[in-house]
């Protein structure tokens, strides 16, 4: 058997249980709870590390990662529009999903690197925050044009006050303010139980991904190919940028993984309200049923190897 992290087997269990329609369902409240703990844990961990290291935030690095978020949707759109021959709204939706990031995938790469004892930059949680929104904005502009009818005020509010951003930044702030000693009292829940919570999260993600399989069958080969090829290409871009910025081996792996990951929470919600004519099932299925499993099972180990190769 392949040497898979046990948390990944929970995902596989979820997919299998969902595919055979087993009597297994986690209540919505559990999913909300588990994802809340994960988001806070990721933020806290980053915040604690930032408090320890007094170097300050490298603005050039953060700026270029923000720029990456705006640029990734361009090729993602072009591929969907010209090779996939999708309608403009659907291509823009895919571009937004693939340019943005998945915090679930980030949690898995964190677990993966921790298990192998590979360190990465503490500020990686900030990269997640920086990469989440720009691609969604770019995607909406691609669907609508700059002069298009979009309730920007409402949309920006929804995006910047979305759960993931609030919890990640909140966790970062609490971790940074409290420091390593201050957070010792909450360590058991947020740090020690991280992998167990991640396992539950992935079980639920498996069930959700399995629910997308009928849609996947309808949309066929292009969406499967898109969901594998685009992440691979974006991982190369992410890894190259990471190398250019002089990130650590772990940091390059994380940035490659983030570039490869596709949003399945913030992007679908924003597109559903801002560009309702885009087919929501298409992008969600690609992100959830193809790219998420691909990244956590095959992608992440591959991206790590890519980082090793780049480091020479």
């Amino acid at each position, binding site marked *: 058997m392949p040497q898979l992290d046990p948390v990944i087997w929970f995902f596989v269990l979820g997919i299998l249980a969902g595919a055979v329609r087993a009597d297994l369902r986690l209540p*919505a409240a559990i999913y909300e709870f588990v994802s809340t703990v994960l988001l806070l844990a990721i933020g806290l961990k980053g915040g604690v590390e930032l408090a320890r290291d007094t170097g300050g935030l490298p603005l050039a690095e953060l700026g270029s990662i923000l720029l990456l978020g705006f640029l990734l949707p361009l090729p993602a759109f072009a591929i969907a529009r010209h090779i996939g021959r999708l309608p403009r709204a659907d291509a823009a939706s895919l571009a937004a999903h693939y340019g943005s990031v998945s915090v679930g995938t980030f949690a898995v790469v964190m677990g993966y690197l921790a298990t192998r004892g590979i360190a990465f930059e503490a500020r990686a949680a900030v990269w997640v925050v920086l990469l989440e929104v720009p691609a969604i904005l770019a995607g909406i502009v691609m669907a609508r044009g700059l002069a298009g009818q979009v309730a920007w005020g409402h949309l920006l509010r*929804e995006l910047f006050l979305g759960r993931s951003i609030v919890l990640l930044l909140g966790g970062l702030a609490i971790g940074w303010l409290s420091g390593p000693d201050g957070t010792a009292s909450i360590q058991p829940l947020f740090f020690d139980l991280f992998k167990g919570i991640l396992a539950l999260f992935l079980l639920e993600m498996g069930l959700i991904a399995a*629910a997308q399989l009928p849609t996947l069958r309808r949309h066929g080969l292009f969406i499967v190919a898109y969901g594998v090829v685009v992440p691979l290409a974006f991982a190369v871009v992410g890894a190259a940028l990471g190398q250019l910025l002089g990130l650590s081996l772990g940091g390059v792996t994380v940035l490659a993984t983030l570039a490869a990951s596709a949003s399945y929470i913030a992007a679908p919600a924003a597109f559903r309200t801002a560009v*309702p004519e885009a087919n929501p099932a298409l992008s969600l299925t690609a992100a959830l049923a193809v790219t998420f499993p691909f990244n956590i099972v095959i992608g992440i180990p591959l991206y790590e190897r890519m980082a090793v190769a780049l480091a020479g």
Partner: protein
Amino acid sequence: MEQFPRRLLTVVTEAVLERELVAELQSLGVRGYTITDARGKGGRGQRQSDWAQEGNIRIEIVCEPALADRVAARLRERYYDHYAMILFLQDVSVLRPDKF
């Protein structure tokens, strides 16, 4: 016991629309509503309630018939094309007319 005629408007739609619809209802002059999580199957396939992203909600509004009709017309005009949404109207009786 005296009873007063009102209309019950029930809307079943995508949970993602909740905030927007609430604002819409308020702007139309609806004073009260009840929202519950829902799941089921319809023209847009199976809708689960176990993941907020894909869930449905059911909105119930009891009000004057004219207002209920206005709300129904607005929802049909704005949301029927692109969203999973059904709505239906029923005549109901209430005991406290000033409340609805």
